[in-house]
């Protein structure tokens, strides 16, 4: 079915198409429309699922885990502070191997309060064991939710799957997209068949005390699940494109990279903006391409190592920051390249707290990166605003009064 909808509503329609059975959720801007739409579909008898209006995100993730382990297909959505608030349970979901799908609408973390887009929220959940995808278009949001269950529920993976979508850029803008009907999805994604579940006919204890002698292996098995996910993601994305005719990449998506001198590496919608920048750069005679990291976890190590031999320079755009270090994607990419390639890699920090990222800026920075003008890390849109000047004056007042 062809619809004109917001990214958030498309998430809800995709969850329905995926045959989701339980939805525990808590409202937070800019995710709210997702759960409103799901509640609306259920109330109208257009979606057959249990909606649990939990009293916090920590509880949302707890209910998500518990529902999944009974053998039901469970879904939730959150954002920023909500994701941070459920952090303990984010670890729990992966550690207890609950193959759920959760959409995170990427938003800045306060203070100061900021409801707009950046990737700090999900980047901060990097080491929890979840698969992490960053979508770059409305259609990809729909397809990723459906693909997400196939990947998470694969018996060789069994890890939760986070689908990250950029606040407002995707969540609140309307775009036409194709949403498959439940019947169309059935063959690709049959009802959830867990490898094991909590059934009184065969009682098992799960999540009990594990001593040092046995613990490390439980964590290694999560890494094995992540490694298996690389294969499963490639297979599932290929199968999906054959069935539905839509391809958004697998672990990565490439754009005009084959003959490129410089690769612009980014996640989410900045990668879409970068495609425009690349077209402009090429009109000006600069051979650039986009290398979009679709999956941040599992990280596309092989693809990046191969990229290291295909281009002469890399500009990594981060919409996040690891304080005391650098952009998180920048660190990861350099780590993957270490020992494989010595091409220069530069880091551009932009778009924090929803500041607009224009293709003009990306064009400018890519040229500087190629010519060697760009330092290792550049806060690309940093400037002194009139609001910042007020703060500086206020600090002067403090100095005058309190010394």
């Amino acid at each position, binding site marked *: 079915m062809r619809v004109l909808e917001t990214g958030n509503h498309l998430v809800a329609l995709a969850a329905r198409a995926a045959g989701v*059975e*339980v939805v*525990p959720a808590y409202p937070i801007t800019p995710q709210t429309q997702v759960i409103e739409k799901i509640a609306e579909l259920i109330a109208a008898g257009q979606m*057959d*699922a*249990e909606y*649990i*209006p*939990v*009293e*916090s995100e*920590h*509880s*949302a993730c*707890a*209910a*998500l*885990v*518990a*529902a*999944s*382990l*009974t*053998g*039901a*297909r*469970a879904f939730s959505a959150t954002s920023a502070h909500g994701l941070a608030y459920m952090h*303990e*349970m984010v670890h*729990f979901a992966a550690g207890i191997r609950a193959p759920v799908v959760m959409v995170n609408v990427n938003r800045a973390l306060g203070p100061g309060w900021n409801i707009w887009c950046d990737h700090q929220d999900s980047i901060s959940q990097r080491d929890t064991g979840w698969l992490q995808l960053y979508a770059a278009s409305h259609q990809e949001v729909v397809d990723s939710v459906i693909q997400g269950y196939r990947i998470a529920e694969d018996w060789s993976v069994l890890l939760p799957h986070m689908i990250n979508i950029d606040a407002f850029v995707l969540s609140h803008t309307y775009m036409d997209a194709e949403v498959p009907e439940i019947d169309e999805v059935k063959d690709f994604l049959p*009802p959830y068949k867990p490898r094991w579940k*909590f*059934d*009184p006919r065969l*009682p*098992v*204890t*799960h*999540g*009990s*005390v*594990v*001593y040092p002698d*046995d613990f490390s292996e439980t964590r290694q098995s999560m890494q094995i699940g992540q490694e298996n996910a690389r294969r499963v993601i490639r297979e599932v994305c290929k199968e999906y494109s054959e069935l539905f005719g839509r391809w958004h990449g697998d672990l990565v998506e490439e754009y005009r990279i084959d003959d490129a001198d410089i690769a612009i590496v980014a996640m989410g919608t900045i990668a879409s903006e970068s495609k425009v920048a690349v077209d402009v750069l090429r009109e000006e005679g600069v051979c650039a391409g986009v290398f979009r990291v679709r999956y941040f976890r599992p990280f596309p190590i092989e693809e990046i190592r191969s990229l290291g031999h295909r281009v002469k320079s890399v500009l990594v755009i981060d919409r996040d920051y690891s304080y005391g270090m650098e952009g998180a994607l920048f660190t990861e990419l350099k780590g993957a390249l270490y020992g494989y390639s010595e091409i220069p890699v530069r880091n551009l920090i932009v778009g924090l707290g929803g500041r607009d990222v224009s293709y003009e800026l990306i064009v400018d920075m890519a040229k500087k990166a190629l010519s060697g003008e760009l330092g290792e890390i550049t806060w690309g849109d940093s400037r002194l605003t009139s609001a910042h000047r007020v703060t500086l004056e206020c600090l002067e007042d403090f100095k005058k009064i309190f010394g």
Partner: protein
Amino acid sequence: MVTLKSLPEEELFLAGSTACHGCPSSLALRIAFKALGSNVLLIVVASCTSVLQGSYPFSAINVPLLNMAFATGGASASGAVAGYKALKKRGEIEEEPTVLVWAGDGGTYDIGIQSLSGAAERETNFIYFCYNNEMYSNTGTQRSGATPLGAWTTTTPAGKPQHRKDIAQIMIAHGIPYVATVSLAYPLDFFQKMQKAKSIVGTKYIELLAPCPPGWKFPSSKTIEVSRLAVQSGMWLLYEHENGETRFTAATKKIIEGKVRKRPVKEYLDMQGRFKPVLEKPEGKEAEELLERKVTESIKRLKGWVPEYI
């Protein structure tokens, strides 16, 4: 009539648990399972029971057991209940299992109250069981919101200066269909309340006073005696709240009706080492009087809700 001999013989709490001697939680699990049967999902939040069930790959619990994070009792139950409902719709199960949350007082009075309150407000169909040992026993006996006035813990070395909160009454205020308190010294009363909880649809809250031998500092052979004296002294009141009415049960009922004389709180305090630091001090007498007065106040308040005793 239910007698000890008529209780089901099947044990779903198996031998080989790693509980301390005289552990009230393991005794309570036996009685609870006898009342609920085997079609149960047990959800244990971080507490002594996370440890006493046995460690990976062994388990002393012969029903499905999900170990969850400290604050998640109510929310986990909501998720599991919804999951089983979905499975029933799909035709995979005939009867949805009873979901039983097992939490200590730390996981109930303190860190878990939000999640429990949310589940109760959502009218989640489950039994929440709080085994209240009045302290964080699992981490080595620290103060909780359930610790009574005057009690020693490692974080109240001079005795706790505040009274405990009464969470059973907070649960009654949620308007849930069934709230009951139980004691190991009155196992048939306990058994019947669990059975009743199973038969009622909605959120059921059951709370056990769980005397902890190492935490309360009494010999591990005395768990039942301390439990009994708690009830006989009025420090633990046995009642059930249903359809807007509170009914006293077992020994508490006899005390209220004047058929049995209430024992002094002092006798109960003297049985335990945890009140010694306070009782040995000059203000010990005052603490004892405050606790005695609290008992009277609690009975008065509860009696006010029971027309036949006014």
